[in-house]
Each structure stands twice: as structure tokens, then as C-alpha cells.
């Protein structure tokens, strides 16, 4: 296997790991924020929920920032096409992402109920909108996006914001929201006690069941949708250039990989089994940490399902299938991929060690006594 092919596969996999990292780490604080109006009925309870994620969201956000950075460095054309093509959706995502940090930081600074309600809403939006937009984006990527390249490799995108919210994409958006909510619920299960925790169990179970139904429905829809097949291309180690390949649309292509390589079925199965496990444990109110791991594995399964369905495509083009981006034609040069691998090996352990240390310090539930004892030192 050529070295370039190995590194492209490695970065395709690393991108998957980063997306899973975003959904698992950022996901639980977004999930907790979505659950905020449901599980907390008064200011103390709301502050309990906010304080479960208050000290960690900033570290979690680094996963998201890192994900975008990694796409830029490892797959520049993918970054260019996806970010400019989904222009208004990205604007929506950005605004909601900016609301989160300021919501966390500003809410506790004043005690007026209007002030706090405003920032509670901001936090809710900051959780819901990114979860929805990510799912909708995946839904569109699976169906192909209307763009093409000219011979200078300048990209033109012809879709609109409203076309992004088509039925299948919305279904994927709902899967994403349900998944994030159950994950947020298992997290709150670990970090809260009493009435908040009881309400969390109820909301989490509903979200989990919804997630199973929607995910299965998504699978059935995907099997009937048009997918893309790479008929001929320059090679797995050829220079990155999306021109000069032949791609066709074909119904059922999205499930072709699972037929060709049955082991990949592990991904959707992990998605289903993980959620089932999480729902059962949450309902029983037992082993909260295991429940959190279950919903985490479910997320890994769902993200991997999207990746396996698309492989080797990263962003197929519905307008001009021959312009589709695959991991073979959208990567950086071999040198850059190697540099990025070294940078990851050097810096990632530092970030991981720091994260592990932070979570160790913060282990255990957040209680009402803690919140009331020190009214300004916490969120």
C-alpha cells in the first residue's frame, strides 16, 4: 500500500475520531443545555444543571475548534466547499456557538430574573441549533450537494439555505438532536441528584426511544435514496485533484458498502445497541457512568455509520457527480499530512491529559448545597 494512501486513510479515520469527539464531548454539554428548560424548574436547579457543564464546556469546545482546523489542514478542498456551500447554515451555527460561551460567563454575573432567563434561552439555543445543524449537514452530505469545479478548481455552489432543510436532512437533524439529548441525559444522570435527576431519566428515555425509531427510519430511507459510485479515478496515491474522475449516481449506493464489507455493520449496530443500553440503564436509574458510556458508544456508531455509508466519498456533488470530493482527491499533500500527524502526536496527549485531570478534579455530582454555599464562585 503506498504511503500516501495510508496517510489519507489515517486522516479520514482521524477526522471520524474528531467528529465523534465533538459529538461525545461537546454533545453532552449541548444536550444538558437542551434539557435545561425541561429538567430544571427553579433558579437553584437551573444552576445545578449549568454547573455540571460550567467548568468543562470550554475544554469540550476545543474539540469542535479542532475538528474544523483538522478539516482545513488535512482536507482543504472539503473545508472550502462545505463551509462556503453551507454559508448561511454556518452563520446560524456560528451565532449559536458564540451564544454559549457568553451565556455561561455572563449569566451568573447578575441576579435579575430577566437577565438570567435571557441567558438560559441563549444556552438552550446554543445547544439545540448546533445539534440540529450538524445532523442536517450530514443529511445533505449523504444525498450529495450541488457544486462543481471549473478548471482552475474554483468551486461554484448552486443550492440555497431552504434546500438544505429537505425531509431526509431534517430526519438526520432530528436523529442528531435526539442522540445529543439522550447523551446529555446520561451525563446529567452522573452529575445530579434528586428531582433534577428523576426528570432527566424521564426525558432521556423519551429521547432514546425517539432516537432508535428515527435512526431505523433513516436507514430505511437511505437504502432507497440515490448514492454515488466511483467508477474510475486517478488512484489512491495520485495528486489531490477532483477533476478527471468518473462518478455515477445509483439508487442504494449508500448501503453498498455494508453489502460488500459486512463487518461495517458493526457501526449501525453499535448505534442501536448503545442507545438501547443507555435507555435501559437510565430508566432503571442504575450505573450512571455505564449509561453515559453507552450513549457515547451510540454516538460513535452513528457517526461511523455515516462515514462508512459514504466511503470513499467525503462530499459527493449532486450537480456534477464527477466533481465529488473523496478522501483520494481532497487531501493535503503527503508532507502536510505527515506534519499534521506529528503535531497530533505531540499536542494531543497534552490536551487529553489536561482533560482527564480536569474531569478527575470535578468528579462527583453537583449538589444544591454546593451551589448555595458559594453563590458567586460558581456559575
Amino acid at each position, binding site marked *: 500500500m503506498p504511503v500516501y494512501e495510508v496517510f489519507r486513510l489515517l486522516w479520514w479515520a482521524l477526522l471520524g475520531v474528531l467528529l465523534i469527539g465533538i459529538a461525545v464531548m461537546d454533545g453532552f454539554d449541548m444536550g444538558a443545555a437542551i434539557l435545561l428548560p425541561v429538567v430544571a424548574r427553579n433558579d437553584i436547579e437551573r444552576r445545578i444543571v449549568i454547573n455540571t457543564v460550567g467548568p468543562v464546556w470550554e475544554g469540550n469546545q476545543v474539540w469542535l475548534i479542532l475538528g474544523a*482546523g483538522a478539516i482545513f*489542514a488535512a482536507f482543504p478542498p472539503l473545508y472550502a466547499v462545505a463551509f462556503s456551500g453551507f454559508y448561511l447554515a454556518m452563520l446560524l451555527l456560528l451565532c449559536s456557538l458564540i451564544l454559549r460561551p457568553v451565556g455561561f460567563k455572563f449569566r451568573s454575573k447578575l441576579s435579575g430574573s430577566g437577565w438570567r432567563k435571557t441567558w438560559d434561552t441563549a444556552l438552550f439555543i446554543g445547544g439545540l441549533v448546533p445539534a440540529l445543524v450538524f445532523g442536517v449537514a450530514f443529511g445533505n452530505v449523504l444525498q450529495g450537494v450541488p457544486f462543481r469545479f471549473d478548471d482552475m478548481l474554483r468551486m461554484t455552489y448552486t443550492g440555497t439555505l431552504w434546500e438544505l432543510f429537505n425531509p431526509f436532512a431534517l430526519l438526520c437533524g432530528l436523529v442528531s438532536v435526539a442522540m445529543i439529548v439522550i447523551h446529555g441525559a446520561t451525563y446529567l444522570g452522573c452529575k445530579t441528584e434528586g428531582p433534577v435527576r428523576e426528570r432527566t431519566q424521564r426525558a432521556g428515555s423519551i429521547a432514546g426511544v425517539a432516537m432508535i425509531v428515527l435512526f431505523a427510519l433513516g436507514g430505511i430511507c437511505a437504502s432507497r435514496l440515490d448514492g454515488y459510485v466511483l467508477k474510475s479515478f486517478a488512484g489512491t496515491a495520485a495528486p489531490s485533484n477532483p477533476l478527471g474522475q468518473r462518478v455515477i449516481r445509483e439508487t442504494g449506493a449508500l448501503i453498498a458498502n455494508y453489502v460488500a464489507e459486512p463487518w461495517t455493520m458493526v457501526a449501525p449496530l453499535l448505534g442501536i445497541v448503545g442507545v438501547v443500553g443507555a435507555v435501559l440503564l437510565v430508566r432503571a436509574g442504575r450505573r450512571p457512568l455505564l449509561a453515559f458510556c453507552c450513549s457515547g458508544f451510540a454516538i460513535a456508531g452513528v457517526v461511523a455509520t455515516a462515514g462508512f455509508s459514504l466511503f470513499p466519498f467525503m462530499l459527493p456533488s449532486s450537480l456534477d457527480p464527477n466533481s465529488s470530493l473523496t478522501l483520494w482527491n481532497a487531501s493535503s499533500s503527503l508532507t502536510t499530512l505527515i506534519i499534521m500527524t506529528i503535531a497530533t502526536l505531540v499536542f494531543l496527549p497534552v490536551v487529553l491529559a489536561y482533560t482527564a485531570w480536569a474531569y478527575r478534579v470535578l468528579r462527583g455530582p453537583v449538589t444544591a448545597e454546593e451551589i448555595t454555599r458559594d453563590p458567586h464562585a460558581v456559575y
Partner: protein
Amino acid sequence: MDVVTLSRLQFGLTAMYHFLFVSLTLGLSVLLAVMESIYVTTGRTIWREMVKFWGTLFGINFAMGVATGITMEFQFGTNWAYYSHYVGDIFGAPLAITCLLALGTNLSALWILIANGWMQYPVGAHFNLATMRMEVADFTAVLFNPVAQAKFVHTVSAGYVTGAMFVLSISAFYLLRGRNRGLAIRSMTVAASFGLASALSVVVLGDESGYTAGQNQKMKIAAIESMWHTEPAPASFTVVGLPDMATHTTRYAVRIPWVLGMIATRSLDGKVAGIDELVADGTERIQSGMVAYRAMEGLRKDPTDAALRAVFDAHVNDLGYALLLKRYTPNVVDATRAQIQAAAWDTVPPVFPLFWTFRIMVALGFYFIALFATMFWQASARQLERRRWLLRVCLWSLPLPWIAAELGWYVAEGGRQPWTIDGVLPTFLSVSSVPASNVALSLACFVVFYSALAIVELYLMVRTVRLGPEDFIAVLAPEIAAKAIALRPAE
């Protein structure tokens, strides 16, 4: 307005807004570390109180820095898609590392300035015909880019000056009100000494930055100094004047002989190229770039043509100059003499604003040295409270470091025009193919959203400052406040 103008406006505004918070974070983080170290070594609780107070202001500010940073990261893709494709292979890696280190501000700043330094002076990269983009040839050259190194120290020092001025001004506010004197005097002493060192560093390393630019970005220097024509060495320095782009002259110019030549070349016989000479060079490079462009089109039809390949390789370094012609003729190779001439004059950045922003920035730099030196002297003589007018000067100087820093960014990035990557990729080609209405909408969103956030942030800051350290400590941690009051020497 077209997509290019709107995108530039949006990037400029969001970047300048982002830097408002970044510069304060850079400076306050070091000041907090100093105060914490003093607390740890002396064990005096007032220093802990200071860390807590300034730390609260730091926290309010830090969140905004990270939040607005995400916008910057996304914007390369959303608004500068062709740029991202064209140079992502080199620019992406340092940007990704910047993001990896997002929470460690100083380290993060190093990597983004490596990325930015490469835009000013694109070393260690070559154009790859097979992928139609720039690719890494020598990553160590990108890392140890002299422009990036000088810029990093200059920018970080500017942040330190901002942090020092912030602490100095707010402390002056307390002293003018005659309250929180213990905290204010100590804070002021730390800020004045740290500020003096930083202000000296920002000016000296700014000169270093100018020197490296003088070697690598001659057009930027010529525009900043409004040097329309090459002069016999050593060139004279224009202190003030009104540069006129239409007539290529500077009206009412006040000149000092020799000075520019000595600053820019650090010699008496070094020549500083004038704008007209650089435009003539540009014309030649455009013509050479057209040869490369023609060869490139031939090679696309027949990649095996060795003769054409040799021609392309000989002229590829000027390919970016040929791309300047795309504004006048999409085919590039059929450009007329007049179009080539117009494109060559496009390489001149706007002289008038560069001339003046640079001068105001430098004047502010020297003012900071003077102010911090004065306050340092006052602190050493234990006379900080003696001259109220000085305290008032400190208070009203609060916004100046931010103004200087933003002017500095204008000089650096406005002076890089018409390029996003100097000599490689013109700005007007770097944008995404998105409708102008979308960019107008996002720009409007950012203006409204960011203004609202700025008001909230300012309100919280002012409120925290007015509440003051003692009341604030009393609310936060009563036992510390009690101890602090008990231990404080009588004032």
C-alpha cells in the same frame, strides 16, 4: 457592494473585534502570573486579592476571545474558499495547531502569527500543477519565517502593553477616588514596570518588523513611507504630509534627510526602492507570469510536454502576478499593454491611510514608553498619588493601546493588499463563490450581534470595576476579605 468588498469588510471587522479581547488576554495572563508569583513567594494576602479581582475581569474577557475566535476559524472556509483551496496545504497546518492550543493564548498566538507571517512572506512553498494549488516544500522554513518571528514578538508585546495599561488605568481610577489604595498602588507598580518593558519591546521589535518588511515587502514599506520615487541612498524620511494617489506626490511633506535609508536598510548606502520602480518591477513580473500561465494551459492539455514544462518552471514564481490580470481579462494571456499597466499599479496599496495609520501607531508607541517610564519613576519614588493630573492621564489613556494595535493590524494587512498571499494570490480571487446578498446578511448579523455583546461585556466590566475589589471580595469570599482587612497595614 461586491462579494470581495463585503468579505474583506467582514473579515477585517471580525478580526479587529477578536483582537480587542485577545490583546487584553495576552497581557492580563502575564500580569496575573506575576501577581500570583508574588503572592506565593511573600504570602501576603493582598496579592491574592489582586489576583482574584483582576482574574474576574480576565474571565469576562477571555470568554469573548475564544467565542470570537471560532468566527475567524470558520471564515476562511465560508468567505475565502478559493484561498482555502489554494494555500490550505500550507496555511491549514499552523491554523489547526493554533486551534489545538486555543486555550493557551500565548502559544496559540505564536501559531496564528506563523500562518499570518507566511501570508506576508510566503517561504517554503511551491505551486503544484497537478493539484492547482500551493504546497509545502520546506515546513521548517514556514516555521522559522523571519517575518513570523518578528511579528509574533511585536504582537505579543502589544498585548502586554494593553494588559499593563488596563491595570494602570483602573488603578488610577481607584486612586483618584481615594479607594482601594493598597490594591491600586501595588497593581500600578507592577503594571508600570511591566508596561515599560513591554512598550520598549513593542517599539524596538516593531522596528525589527519594519526591517524584515523592508527586505521582503518593499511595496508595503514604500507605501507606508509614501516614497513615490526611488531616491539616492540614504533616503529621506517623510515625517508628515498628504500623499496623493492621483499625482503620485506627497503634498506639504516635511522630510528629514537620511533617516529612512538608515532605518530601512541599517546602512548609509542601502537603497530604498520607490513606488514607481516597484511598479516597473511588477510590470515585468506580470509579463513573466503570463508566460507561466500560457505554459500552464498548454500543460493541462498535454502534461508530458517537457519543453513547456521547462518554460513553466522558469516563470512559475511570477504566476501570482499574472493572476492580477484576471480582474481585467479572464483569459490572462490576451491582456493588452494598458491592462498590464493597470494591473501593475494595482500592486500599490492605499498610500494615504497607510502613511497616517503607521505614524499614529508609532507616535502612540513612543507615548506608551513615556507614560510607563513616568509612572515607573513615580512608583519607585513612592509618589504615585502625588500628581492627580498624571493619574487622570493614565485613566484617559485606557483606550489607546487598543487603538494602536488595531492601527498596527491595518498597516500589516492593509499594506499587504492587493494580495492575500504576497505575490502569490490576489485578494479578489481568494473569495468564495457565494451571492453578495449572503455576505451582506452575515456582515449585518455580525455587526448587530457583536455590538450587543460588546455592550454587555463593557457593562459587566464597568460594573465589576465600580463594585471594586473589596466589596467584590466581601461578596465573593467573606473570610478572605476579613483576613485581608485584618492584615492590611494602616493606610
